[in-house]
């Protein structure tokens, strides 16, 4: 995912002389180094200082530039208050690129695995929050956000793990969910690479006679209210799956829509606790019940119980 984003930034940089990329000592890890090599004057590394990173980017935006600030999601959260009081409050045109989110940084362990950032970002009044499903979608999201959004946005990506979920022709329209599969018995809504396993879970459920709709809710905010309500009305049961705690993230965002417009039974699936070091992302999915088998089993039991 990070490679796709790194490439997108360079392409944007070719056409927009006002674009500036800033990072907090993670140019190599975030692949913003490619932008740095191509446009050295329009790249700044502020060293290990995420609060400075965010406000430096704010200054650039105030001065008419179009900055992208890149850091690991976990450590960008250290600058939550700066994001809130400077970027969001003044509605500045700063794009926050948060990498290594969820369990994607499997090696580094719990300290680095951000399971709270969607909640923290979506509560901000003016912030747009996007969680692309795969590398292809991430690339499109970067381009779209830079070209169409003149305000604050938070783009949450993983690291390397990004199995193909979308197609080249899949459109990326901010605020418009992608229905990956249709179904009548239950709606599975996900965001990010975990969707690959949600699709696989839907396949397992179909073998057991449960037809699940699968939705890629790449834009957590502004959320696609009409698609959420439409599928709640169609299926009567909604499940959310995310690489994040089942509190305040995608699940919370969907619940807020339904509780106001069409109260529906919901199951919120997410991380079970803090992460841990692992040799692969799949090991962490297994530990947190986020594998296809685990998701399918949980959904099936839940439906059985809910329909009694």
């Amino acid at each position, binding site marked *: 995912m990070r490679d796709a984003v790194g490439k997108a930034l360079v392409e944007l940089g070719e056409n927009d002389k006002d674009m500036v990329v800033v990072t907090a000592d993670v140019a190599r890890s975030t692949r913003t180094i490619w932008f740095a090599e191509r446009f050295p004057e329009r790249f700044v590394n502020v060293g290990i*200082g995420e609060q*400075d990173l965010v406000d*430096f980017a*704010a*200054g650039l935006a105030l001065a*008419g530039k179009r900055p992208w600030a890149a850091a690991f999601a976990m450590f960008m959260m250290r600058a939550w208050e700066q994001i809130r009081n400077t970027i969001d409050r003044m509605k500045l045109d700063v794009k926050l690129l948060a990498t290594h989110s969820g369990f994607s940084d499997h090696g580094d362990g719990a300290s680095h695995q951000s399971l709270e950032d969607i909640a923290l970002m979506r509560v901000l009044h003016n912030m747009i929050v996007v969680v692309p499903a795969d590398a292809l979608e991430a690339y499109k999201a970067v381009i779209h956000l830079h070209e169409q959004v003149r305000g604050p946005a938070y783009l949450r990506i993983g690291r390397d793990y990004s199995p193909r979920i979308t197609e080249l022709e899949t459109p990326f329209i901010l605020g418009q969910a992608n229905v990956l599969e249709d179904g009548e018995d239950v709606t599975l809504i996900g965001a990010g690479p975990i969707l690959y396993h949600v699709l696989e879970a839907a396949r397992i459920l179909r073998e057991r006679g449960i037809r699940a709709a699968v939705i890629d809710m790449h834009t957590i905010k502004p959320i696609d209210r009409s698609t959420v309500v439409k599928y709640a009305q169609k299926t009567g049961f909604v499940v959310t799956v995310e690489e994040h705690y089942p509190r305040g993230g995608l699940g919370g965002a969907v619940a807020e829509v339904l509780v106001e417009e069409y109260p529906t039974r919901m199951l919120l699936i997410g991380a079970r606790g803090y992460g841990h070091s692992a040799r692969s992302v799949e090991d962490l999915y297994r530990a947190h019940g986020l594998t296809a088998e685990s998701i399918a089993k949980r959904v099936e039991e839940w439906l059985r119980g809910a329909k009694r």
Partner: protein
Amino acid sequence: MRTFNELREIAARVRKRILRMAAADKSVHAGASLSVTDILVALYFGIGVRVDGPPTHRDWVILSKGHAVPALYAILAEMGVIDERELDKIRSIDGLEGHPDFNTPGIDVSTGSLGQGLSIGAGIAYAMRLDGTEGKYHVYVILGDGELDEGQVWEAATTAAHLRLRSLVAIVDVNGFQLDGPTEKVKSKGSLAARWSSIGWHVIEADGHSFRSLLSALEEAKSYPGPAVILAYTRRGRGLGLLEKTGEQHVSPEYAKQFVE
């Protein structure tokens, strides 16, 4: 070019307005506003900041010690940018914000949360470099000495020094106080001059209540080919005997009323 006497007269009017605002609302930070008054008068009326124009073709003033905004409002009223009557509505729901809001005419950046202004200023200064106006225009960031407790200030300072941002000028209102009391009692600051200079800033010490000293410091800071900091030694509450004596931040509206016609 105004004379020192003219600047002193302007400062006296600014202080009067601050007391007028203190009379309107007891939560106004009178002490901090009075200590920074002469610094702001020196900036706006002494060297004369050019705050109109495209973003990188103008000067910027960032009041990072945002709670001293009454002083800035008083300056803006002096300039006719905001109406005098607005001052009486400070901190009211339909009036001037208690901390800088960039939607208010004459306010460049919204602040209030300490420690952020220098980073923001560095970003603006860097944009000037990109647009070829570095050194021609400056970004003045005013900080409090208590504010230097915030780690982010040092994140910004080292970034600015590393990038050798010559358009960035920091001015510290060293009044020796913070919320919980004298700065040295709350947390020793060590040697401020040594801190700044060791990371690569040009340090200028000035008397924060002498226009001769302030203007000379500002000229030196502007022409230095790198980031410069002015440590301006001031007195909290300067101009109001009671506050100068007690070092308090606030004054009761009843007391403040006496000094306003």
